[in-house]
C-alpha cells in the first residue's frame, strides 16, 4: 500500500534528514516508526501526505506517486492524527469530526449518520457531544474525537504522529487497547510514529526502528526483540527485551508449539487462562505463587501444566526460529 523507494530528504542543501529509505507497508498493516528524537520518523511520516517535500526518491501510495498526486485530493483520502489532536476550538465536535466529509460535499443526513457511527466506534455518546466544544472535553476525549475525525471519510490509509503521546499513562493504555480493537475491525493501513518501545510492541504489526535518518531494523516486534539486528537496536529495545517479547505470546502459543506437561501432584499449582500472555505466566511463576500453572481454556477445561523450564524451552525455540 505504501512503498518507500529510495526516499531521501535533505535540508538546506546539506543536512540529511532521511537517507535512501526503502520499505513497504502492506495493506491492513499497522507499522510503527520508532526511534530517538531527531531520527527522522516524523519527517518521514509527513512526507507521505506531502507536508514535507521529498528531495529524492518517491513514495508510492496505492501505486501512485505522492509527488505527482494532487496534494489536496490525496490528503482528503488519508486520515491524519497528531499528538496535540489539533481540534478547531471555533467549531463544535460534530463540525470538527465531519470536516473532511464537509469538504467532500456529503449531504447532511449522510454526515449525521457517519458522525453517530464514528462516535460510537471511539466510545463517545454522539448526542451528548455533538454540540459541545473541544475545550469542554478532557484530553482523552479530545483525542478520541481526533481519531474519529481522521476516520471520517473512511480513508484506507492513516498517518498517526504520536497520537497518544500527550495523554497520561492510564488513559493512554485505554486508548491504545480501544484503538487496537477498532483496527481489528477496520483493517486500515496505518503508519504510526512513536518513541515508546512498549507502545510499539503492543500495537505494531511491524516496527521500523530509525536512527539518524537510516533504517536500523524493520521487522515484526517479536523478531526485533528476540533478534535485534545490531547493538543500537538491542540497546533501544532495552535489556529486558526478552521479557518484553513474552507479552507477545499467549500461553496458547506455547501449548500449540510444545506438549504441555502432565499436572504433577507434588508441585504447588495455580490455574491460568490460555489466552493470557506468557509474561503474566512468568510473573506468576517467579512470584512464588506456584511452581506450575495449570492451563485451562475459556470453558475451564484442564489442558496440562507449564513450568519455567517449559517456557525456557519455548523461548529458545522461538529465538532460533526467528533467525
Amino acid at each position, binding site marked *: 500500500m505504501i512503498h518507500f523507494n529510495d526516499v531521501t530528504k535533505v535540508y538546506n542543501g546539506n543536512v540529511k534528514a532521511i537517507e535512501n529509505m526503502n520499505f513497504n507497508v502492506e495493506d491492513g498493516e499497522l507499522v510503527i516508526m520508532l526511534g530517538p528524537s531527531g531520527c527522522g520518523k516524523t519527517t518521514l511520516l509527513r512526507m507521505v501526505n506531502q507536508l514535507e517535500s521529498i528531495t529524492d526518491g518517491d513514495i508510492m501510495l496505492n501505486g501512485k506517486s505522492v509527488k505527482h498526486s494532487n496534494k489536496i*485530493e490525496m*490528503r482528503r483520502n*488519508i486520515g491524519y492524527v497528531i499528538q496535540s489532536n489539533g481540534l478547531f*476550538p*471555533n467549531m463544535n465536535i460534530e463540525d470538527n469530526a465531519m470536516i473532511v466529509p464537509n*469538504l467532500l460535499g456529503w449531504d447532511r443526513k449522510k454526515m449525521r449518520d457517519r458522525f453517530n457511527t464514528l462516535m460510537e466506534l471511539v466510545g463517545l455518546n454522539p448526542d451528548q457531544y455533538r454540540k459541545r*466544544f473541544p475545550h469542554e472535553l478532557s484530553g482523552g476525549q479530545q483525542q478520541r474525537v481526533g481519531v474519529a475525525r481522521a476516520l471520517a471519510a473512511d480513508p484506507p490509509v492513516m498517518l498517526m504522529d504520536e497520537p497518544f503521546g500527550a495523554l497520561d499513562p492510564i488513559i493512554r493504555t485505554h486508548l491504545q487497547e480501544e484503538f487496537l480493537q477498532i483496527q481489528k475491525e477496520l483493517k486500515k493501513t496505518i503508519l504510526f510514529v512513536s518513541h515508546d518501545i512498549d507502545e510499539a510492541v503492543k500495537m505494531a504489526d511491524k516496527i521500523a526502528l530509525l536512527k539518524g535518518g537510516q533504517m536500523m531494523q524493520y521487522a515484526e516486534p517479536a523478531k526485533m526483540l528476540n533478534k535485534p539486528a545490531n547493538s543500537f537496536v538491542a540497546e533501544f529495545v532495552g535489556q529486558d527485551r526478552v521479557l518484553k517479547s513474552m507479552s507477545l505470546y499467549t500461553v496458547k502459543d506455547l501449548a500449540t508449539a510444545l506438549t504441555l506437561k502432565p499436572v504433577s501432584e507434588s508441585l504447588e499449582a495455580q490455574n491460568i487462562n490460555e489466552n493470557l500472555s506468557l509474561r503474566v505466566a512468568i510473573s506468576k511463576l517467579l512470584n512464588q505463587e506456584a511452581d506450575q500453572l495449570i492451563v485451562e481454556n475459556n470453558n475451564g477445561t484442564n489442558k496440562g501444566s507449564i513450568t519455567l523450564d517449559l517456557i525456557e524451552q519455548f523461548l529458545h525455540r522461538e529465538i532460533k526460529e526467528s533467525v
Partner: protein
Amino acid sequence: MERTNKTIALIIKLIFWGLLAAFFVWAFTNSMFSTIVEQPDTFFRLLGEHVTIVLLSGAAAVLLAVPLGIFVTRPKFRKSEWLIIGIANLGQTVPSLAVLALAMGFLGIGISAAIVALFVYSLLPIIQNTIAGIDSVDDDMIDAAKGMGLTNSQILWKIELPNALTSIIAGVRTALVINIGTAALAYLVGAGGLGVWIFTGIRLFDNAFLMSGAVPVTLLAILIDYLFKWLQFALVPKGLRLARKAQNS
C-alpha cells in the same frame, strides 16, 4: 483571597460611579450643558459630523488594514511585514495634529482631510492586531488542517480568521475609541465635529461650550467601546469563548 479582591473591585466601582454622578450633578446645577439645550440643531449637526468622520475613516481603515494584515501573514509575503508595519508606524508616531496638518496640505480645508488623517492614524492598531491574531493561531491546528486536505483559503476562512477574530475586533475597537478623541481636532482643518464647541470654549473661557462639546465626545467613546464589546460577544464563535475561559481558569 478572591473574596477580598471582589470587595476591593466593588468599592472601586462604587467610588467611580459616585464621582461620575457627582460630576453630572455639578454640571447640571451649574448649567454646563446649556449650549446643547439652547442650540440643539447645531449640536446634532456637530455630532453628525463627528460620527461621520470617525465611522468613515474607521471603515476605510478596516477595509485596508485587515486585508493587509492577512497579506503580511501569508508565508510567501512574510518578508514584507517590516515594510508594512514600518509605514503604519510612521502614521502612528507622527503627532495626530501633524497628520491632520499634512492631510490638509494635500486635500485642503474640509471634512475629507480629517477623514484621511484619521484613516492613516487607525491603520496601525488594526494591522498589528490582525497580524497578532493570526499569528496566535496554534501551528498544530494549521498542520492538522493542512494534513486533512484543506486548501490555503479554506484554512484562512475556516480556521485562521475565526480564531483571530477576537484580536481583530479588539484592534478596531482601540482604533475607533482613539479616533473619537482625535476627531475633536478635526475642527482645526475646518471639518467641524464637536471639536468646534470645545475649541470655542477654550478660546472664550466658556465652560458651558467646553463641556457641551467634551462630555458628548467622552460618552460617544464609551458607547462605541461597549458596542464593540457586544460585537465581540456576538461574532466570536462560542467555542473560542470557552477556550479563553478554560485558559484563564
